[in-house]
């Protein structure tokens, strides 16, 4: 398959775009695979890609019930960061960040990873102290972080509300300069193309409907396109993990919740960074197309519906205007919802399951997009080696019964609060 480059682009432009090939094949499923990955979102595709690339396991199928990247990969707010405090999260997300930094090259597909900086605003001394603790932990873990005071924040983002009218004044902020955004759909497409080029079969419109079990093993998956045998099987289905697990009689520490996202009408460059409001739930960036992309808090009740309600919308918009008053007259173009697999401590679960050849990758809460390459990388390792990598050893499923909780937000076993 042809490489993408400025030369191929010119060549094709001159010949009328007749020789572009499919970005990925559309194969019929084989009777069985060494590894079947359920879920053709970013995580499933990244897992297949790294299984093939790093571990040489190429007899792999990715089963997607709809269209590639149609879940949260295609409906998130595209933020990439590794500004975590707890070690197990920090090391994992930083690995992901490092993969992001080379991902376009690795895939030969421009995922538009834009390291424009992620700034979290603080609105009290106590919040500044918490940010300091997080930033210091990041530095000690080798992750970039800068603590800005009010003046420095104002210099960087002069358009925030610094007036006396602000209900919650800005005290300062924590900046991760390497954080930023990426073009979410491109990540799915680039990974699909990359995995496909290494021999992975990507099978769309193939819904898993059941499992064939022998003892404590899954022999095959039953799908809308027939039964497909599997040596090993990995779930990367985010909000639908609980549903698939229930078909295996498994209960997980996961609830599905809806998170809404929003985009404004397109505008000339207005916001150059990713900025988050600290006295409410609101975060903001501007896409390359010009739309302001923003989001807020969960709708706070279990949901599998990919749409949310007005109470949360109002809450988000209030936060937005509180942070950036000039948003008031700009217009909301579209809003939608994604189904979040909220784990009970707010951190992901990647590892082995109680079933011998089943591996779990779930519990992403609303942090799954930034984890995409890292998640695939460690999940591929876990599947290939039948053993978690040190980077995901702390993300095991049994941490709940063992009491090794990874509660980054410190809000307890209430999924809606993470």
């Amino acid at each position, binding site marked *: 398959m042809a490489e*993408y*480059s*400025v030369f191929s*682009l010119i060549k094709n432009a*001159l010949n009328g775009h007749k020789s572009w090939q*499919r970005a990925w094949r*559309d194969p019929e499923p084989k009777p069985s695979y060494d590894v079947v990955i359920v879920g053709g979102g970013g995580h499933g595709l990244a897992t297949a890609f790294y299984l093939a690339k790093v571990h040489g396991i190429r007899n792999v199928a990715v089963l997607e019930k709809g*269209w*590639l990247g*149609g879940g949260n990969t*295609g409906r998130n707010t595209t933020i990439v960061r590794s500004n975590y405090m707890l070690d197990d999260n920090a*090391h994992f997300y930083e690995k992901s960040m490092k993969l992001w930094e080379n991902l376009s090259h690795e895939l*030969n*597909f*421009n995922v538009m990873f*834009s*390291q424009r900086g992620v700034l979290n605003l603080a609105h*009290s001394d106590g919040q500044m102290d918490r940010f*300091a603790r997080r930033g210091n*932990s990041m530095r000690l*873990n080798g992750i970039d972080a800068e*603590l800005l005071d009010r003046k420095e924040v104002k210099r960087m983002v002069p358009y925030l509300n610094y007036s006396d*009218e602000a*209900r*919650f004044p800005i005290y300062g902020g924590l900046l991760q300069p390497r954080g*930023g955004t990426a073009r979410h759909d491109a990540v799915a*497409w680039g990974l699909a193309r990359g995995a496909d080029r290494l021999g992975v079969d990507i099978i769309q419109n193939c819904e898993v409907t059941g499992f064939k079990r022998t003892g404590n093993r899954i022999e095959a998956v039953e799908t809308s396109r027939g039964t497909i045998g599997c040596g090993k099987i990995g779930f990367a289905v985010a909000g639908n993990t609980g549903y698939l697990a229930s078909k295996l009689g498994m209960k997980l520490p996961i609830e599905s919740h809806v998170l809404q996202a929003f985009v*404004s*009408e397109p*505008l*000339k*460059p207005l916001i150059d960074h990713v900025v988050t409001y600290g006295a*409410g739930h609101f975060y903001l960036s*501007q896409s390359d*197309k*010009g739309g302001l992309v923003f989001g807020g808090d969960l709708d706070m009740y279990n949901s599998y*519906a990919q749409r949310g309600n*007005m109470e949360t919308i*109002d809450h*988000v918009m*209030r936060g*937005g205007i509180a942070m950036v*008053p*000039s*948003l*008031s*007259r*700009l*217009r*909301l173009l*579209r*809003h939608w919802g994604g189904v979040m697999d909220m784990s009970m401590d707010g951190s992901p679960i990647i590892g082995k399951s109680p079933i011998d050849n089943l591996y779990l990758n779930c519990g992403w809460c609303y942090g799954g997009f930034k984890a995409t390459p890292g998640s695939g990388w460690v999940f591929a390792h876990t599947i290939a080696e039948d053993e978690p990598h040190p980077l995901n050893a702390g993300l095991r499923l049994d*941490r709940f019964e*063992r*009491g*090794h*909780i990874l*509660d980054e*937000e410190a809000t*307890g076993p209430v999924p809606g609060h993470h």
Partner: protein
Amino acid sequence: MIRGKEQQPFRISEGGEIERTRPLAFSFDGKSYTGYEGDTLASALLANGVKLVGRSFKYHRPRGIYSAGPEEPNALVNLRSGGRQEPNTRATQIELFAGLEAKSQNRWPSLALDVMGVNDLASRFLFAGFYYKTFMGIPGWHFYEHFIRKAAGMGTAEHVSDPDLYDKMHGHADIVVVGAGPAGLAAALTAGRSGARVFLIDENDKPGGRLRSERETIDGKPAMDWAASTLAELEEMENVTLLRRATAFGYYDGDTIAVLERVSDHLPVPAPFQVRQRRWLIHAKKVLLATGSTERPLVFDGNDRPGVMLAGAARTYANRFAVRPGKHAVVFANNDDGYRTALDLAEAGIEVRGVIDPRTGGQGPLKEDVIAQGIDVVSGAIVVRTHGYLGLAGVDIADLATLQSGAMPETRYIPCDLLATGGGWSPNVHLYSHQSGKPVYDPAIAAFVPGESRMNDRSIGAARGRFSLGDCLADGYTAGQESAEALGFTTGAVADIPSTDEQATGPLKILWQVPALPGRKGRRFVDLQDDVTADDVKLAQSEGYVSVEHLKRYTTLGMGTDQGKTSNINGHGVLAEARGLDVSEVGTTTFRPPYTPVAIGAFAGREVGRHQNPVRRTPMHDWHLAHGAQMMEAGLWMRPQYYLGKDEPNSREAMFKAIERETLAVRNAGGISDVSTLGKIDIQGPDAAELLNRVYINGWKTLAVGKARYGVMLREDGVALDDGTTSRIGENHYYMTTTTAEAGPVMEHLELHLQVHWPDLDVKVASVSDEWAAMAIAGPNSRAILQDLFPQLDLSNEGFPFMGVREAKLGTFPARIFRISFSGELAYEIAVPAGYGEAAWERCLAVGESHGLVPYGLEALNILRIEKGHVTVAEIDGRVSAADLGFGKMMSSKKRFVGDALSTREGMDDPGRPTLVGLTPVDGTTRIRAGSILVEDPKAPPPVPKLGHVSSTAPISPNVGHPISIGLLKDGPNRIGDTVWAVFPLKGEAVQVKVTSPNVFDVEGARLHG
């Protein structure tokens, strides 16, 4: 006004809904024009002969007014200026007002000469998704992105604040009717007559919908007469609310319709006290969606030229606005609307030079009428290309069959400045789809119509593909009546449905894309706003982006401000053809709210600025403000941080001086602080002690009346939730206090457990946080002050020991006095009914003046408690256990309590977990910052193993004489006396610290018990 007429060369002298007696001056791109009241900006521009109004998103191609409604892809302008500037505003929906100012967008230096128009020449390189295939090299995407971002975007916004107000309103209705076209008016009429509460919502300045744009009749009279009389009847009904200029933009759960009412957008500025816009949420029992339909463009070579316009829009401009959108017109349509358009344009005095109809054979009476008027009708033909640059100059037409056979047809050039074009109509199924409704394809109209209703909604009229006026009226009358009856209202006899005189129409010919001339590389735009061509769609398909969602995301089809109102179905049709499928098989993308873009301010309403969230005030709030308090936010509360003297400036030095002054006063004389924000819960009933036993880690069965006890609560997972004191003030009566932050959660915690888990307990809880004002008086002189306040009380250590509780009168009103201490001093807390709070506070200060009593704020309070190693939310941070805080021994093993079970898990029970300690700089002077991390070796390379962190610090501790802090350190109790490093790499600092007990002041507690 003669002047207005002269300036409006395209205005028809009679007819239309405009007020010719009310001319309005306005400007576009700095040039002045005149229109009339009743115009939109679009109609006024057309009246003045302005055809070029914008540039397209990607190729910066010249674009004109394309439609007459919310579907407008091209005519987006920057409206108004300064704080009221609104980019991307559709000229087709802006009602003209005096002094209106608009500017074109996405062009430089001017609309006619746009440098970025060079993109158009390079368009073969800027095909769909080109950016995914390049810009990957040195210096990286972020570099290229800078230029791409500047080229992209549409309108320009600035960081200026909005001077206008927004409002929010709730409504409740039996029946909400969305859209006041013929179907909606008819439905509202029959529903309204039944007495049902009806909301009729319409996005225009006045009801009528398409009736305003057509020359139809009802009962033999102009259709608008019927609309006017219907409206008059509706306005008389008290049970009917009509919202004009109101767009129902979203359909939410619970049959809630979200509406944006543009209260003042048609005015130069809102009237005094009036809002700009009002966002409604209307809860309905039934929803009738009379949302009409949108005309589809035809996709042909050069279909984006200014002067190419939807046929229905051309009729609107001619009929409603009395404007000729051109002088010489060609009509190109795949259905009988083409003939209707030709007739209307001819009536308006436009020379119609041909009706191009791809169909062959007879189509019925409309065509006959057109031929009878001598207009050239070319059947079986298509427009294969347009000519002109900044405006249409003419079209080439050719025979369709010849083209489809693969041969090169002869073309004929027709000069014209208006090409009215229509590809049929698509029902507006947006609101239906917002609640996951699945539209189904109707091949008869080549469009998607609503499928099964998931909510209590029903689509009527054109919104469900019933396009004839008669059908719309019948649908409306019937639906209004049936909906009212289903809700139990009586409607009596079926109303007579008025008659119409429509002509029969023939079937349309599906034409998702008009074939191009062989060998011509012209562009056929599917999405006018985002510059997506039919070839882009085919390229995406050939690269495997075959799902409609992939198509949308890869090509940006339908991603513009119009959300693909005119483009989606054509795009999907082209995709279907490329895939060899039927449109019904490729489906549609999901329609998302809002139907048309909504100002963000409308969602915030009045909750902006300092009203973003409620402010909670303590009973002594005004006193604090009047006495130099610098207030700070504590959640929703405002609390004094420190108090400045009368003439002290609010400087950093003065702040430190004030904090030191207050801290010393407490330790040396007396201080008083406002602790009214603490949560307070009244607990009554024989099982009150049992409840306390279950929610606190320590035992409560032995607490005597008149005594208080400190307690710690855990969450069910074993993590500390909150701490506070609870007092027994009667046999079966307790008074619990919580921290300020956890007051709400603790109350909910108690209610949940009592109602769900332990309903057998005979105990009631009630929040009394607002009932009691509370103040802490601390310091060596506090007993003397209390004695002056309460001469009747025995305040000796024996008479009123530490953790004692007394009730007494302060003057004439009741007070509760608690001998508890957060500062480690001899201290009391006094609670009085809130209405007496300020009086009691003033009384304390008056009495205490001679004892050196001063008010102290949160900063001093913080230093005092750190000196004593007392914890706050900085330590109880949602991750620590009771044992981590040094309360391990408090955890009773004789009873069960919330959180005990999961506290025993290995990870929670690990003795190596970080535990509360005190931390003092080894050099005795260097300040330790909160948020520092404790490490063994400050020079170790990352990743550095962490031993814990510094949670609270005081840069000055005037009582101890050096900076102090507390924090959590691994294996803390065994490391007392050791030194570790507190590092703060964010500022490149590392401080060697000695590990101490958390309590570094008056360790024996002599003061407390003094």
